[in-house]
């Protein structure tokens, strides 16, 4: 390369760098602005969902009713379990009634190698429970059935409250050990719309 050619090349690189710097100055955000989110959520209509079977109280409060609802899809069993219970604890679709006391939150959800899921609930499930054997059974099995019906890997569900094992939720139903699904409390229901 001749000396003149080198000069032209250097001049072109400098000019390109200058143009690039100028462009960056023009399109760079203003100082102090928030950084861009690292994960951008696609619009809701584009979120992947599964259709899960959730359990609510029948309108007369006598039984559980299986209701098909859309639940955000997750990439692992544990995450899917969390999504299912999060939707379950929201308001019940009409005309059904919520059998999990209002305000109950999911504190943790994890799975053992034996197929036992541990569902850790906030203390609201105890403090806000209206009582009665039937309602207590409906509360317990709305959760147990929802997990076992939608997650084939889960055989039994152990309920915890505030991270600890408890005897009962409202004084009647034994929740000291993992519970299996109970279909006897379920009355035939119908599909619900997308949540």
């Amino acid at each position: 390369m001749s000396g003149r050619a080198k000069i032209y090349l250097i001049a072109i690189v400098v000019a390109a760098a200058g143009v690039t710097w100028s462009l960056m100055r023009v399109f760079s955000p203003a100082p102090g602005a928030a950084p861009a989110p690292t994960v951008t959520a696609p619009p809701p209509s584009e979120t992947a969902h599964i259709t899960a079977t959730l359990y609510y109280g029948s309108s007369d409060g006598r039984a559980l009713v299986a209701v098909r609802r859309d639940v955000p899809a997750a990439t692992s069993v544990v995450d899917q379990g969390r999504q299912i219970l999060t939707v379950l604890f929201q308001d019940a679709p009409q005309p059904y009634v919520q059998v999990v006391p209002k305000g109950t939150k999911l504190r943790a959800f994890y799975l053992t190698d034996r197929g036992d899921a541990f569902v850790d609930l906030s203390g609201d499930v105890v403090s806000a429970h209206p009582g009665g054997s039937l309602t207590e059974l409906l509360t317990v099995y709305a959760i147990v059935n929802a997990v076992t019906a939608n997650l084939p890997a889960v055989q039994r569900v152990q309920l915890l409250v505030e991270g600890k094992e408890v005897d009962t939720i409202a004084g009647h139903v034994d929740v000291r050990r993992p519970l299996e699904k109970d279909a006897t409390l379920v009355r035939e229901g119908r599909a619900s719309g997308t949540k």
Partner: protein
Amino acid sequence: MTADHQVMSRWRVTRTRGTLVALLCLFLGAPPQAQDTPAPAPLTLVSKDGRRTIPTVTSNGRELIALDDIASLFQVSVREDSLAGGFTITYRGKTIVASVDQSMASVDGRIVTLPSPITRNGRRWFVPVEFLPRALGPIYDQRIDLRRGVRLLLVGDMRVPRVSARIESAGPPTRAAIVISPATPVAVVTEANRLVLRVEADAIEPVFPVSASGMIDGVRVGDQPNVVLVALNRQAGPAKTGIATADNATRVLIEVPMAEVRPAAPESKIPPTGPPLPTTESPRLPGLEPRQALQTLAIDPGHGGDEVGVRGAGGLEEKQLTLDVARRLRGLVERGLGVRVILTRDDDRMVGIDERAAAANNGKADLLLSLHANGALSGSPSGAEVFYDRLDREGEAVRSAPVAAVALPVIGGGTRNIDIVPWELAQARHVEASAMLASVLEQELRQRVPMGQRPIQQGPMRLLSAANMPAVLVEMAYLTNAAQEKAAGGEQFKNAVAQSLYNAIVRFRGYLEETSSP
């Protein structure tokens, strides 16, 4: 005197005698009943002095009693007023004035009506039997009560309860109930082929008879006015009885099984080769009789203290209702069965579930009833429900496994085998009996209180799982249902539940005895 004269004389004598009798009857007053009306059974007067029979007559369909009989029975003075065509009865300064053919009387200045007129026949006056309570009663110093249906006239404060009998099931075992109302103490004695019920009363007002059914041939009043006899037929086995008092009535519950027919021992084809072996059954020592199937009952009034359970909109709390019914049931069982009763709490305090189970287990209760009231998320559910325990995998494993026993040394040497039962799985070996108990309870409750849509349910019930005996949980009513809450706070409902539970216990005792007998 010729023969004809003799005949004529005899006829005259006979005619003269007949005329005299007729005149005498006319003079004294013949009973006024029509010849075509059969005489009713006499009334029986029951008083502190005993029982007497009072003859009555019937005229034109009305039962009448002679005034002179009343005068002698009640020691009242009767004065006839021939001019006015009536009579006056005086008793301790008070008077009754009445006239012939009048259906009324002036009783101490007040007019009372009678169902038929006062009549006179010859010199005898007859008044309708209702005259006794309506006219004589207000001036007499003792109460006069006429019970025409059972032909009793009660004078004074007599205890004459109404006694009805009904066969509840022909069986066998045949179940019958003798209901004494108002509640009255009764002693039951079993005799050969009959039961003798001696009611602590002056007499009884029987609502009998009961036709033969199953092992019972009939129910009738005994020789004494306060005795009821229940006749058993030849095939009847030893009858069991229980006495319960509720709703101001005493109920004698009778269960009569069929006598066991012991098959004759087959004749051995092998002749005996030696002297008979000594029997292994030793004579029973006093005090070592076999343990009765139901000796101790544990009643668990649910919740308590700060743990109120369900609270109805009207303020009724589950913990109050459970303790109230538990106390009523304890009274019934102690009086009726003579069974020891353990209450897991007898006041308003919080008791842990394991503490409740321990009270029943350590007290060696043969039966546990846990009492509760239900709640729902809507106001519509109602009715009683009975729960029994459902085993999980571990429970099923325990039920099917042989009992693990360890040998522990005892004072004085030797060892004693102790069965090891996991506390949380103690119910495993009793689930079938608990299911039977739930069924009996449901049947008895259904007779007196509304039942829920699923009256028997199975679930993992915390208290029941730790009970080492047949155990159920009874939800008596939904306090979240306004009508049920109102009813549950009333005496009638609480007594009805207690009575149902008691009846179920009586029936289940029979089941325990059958299953525990060798």
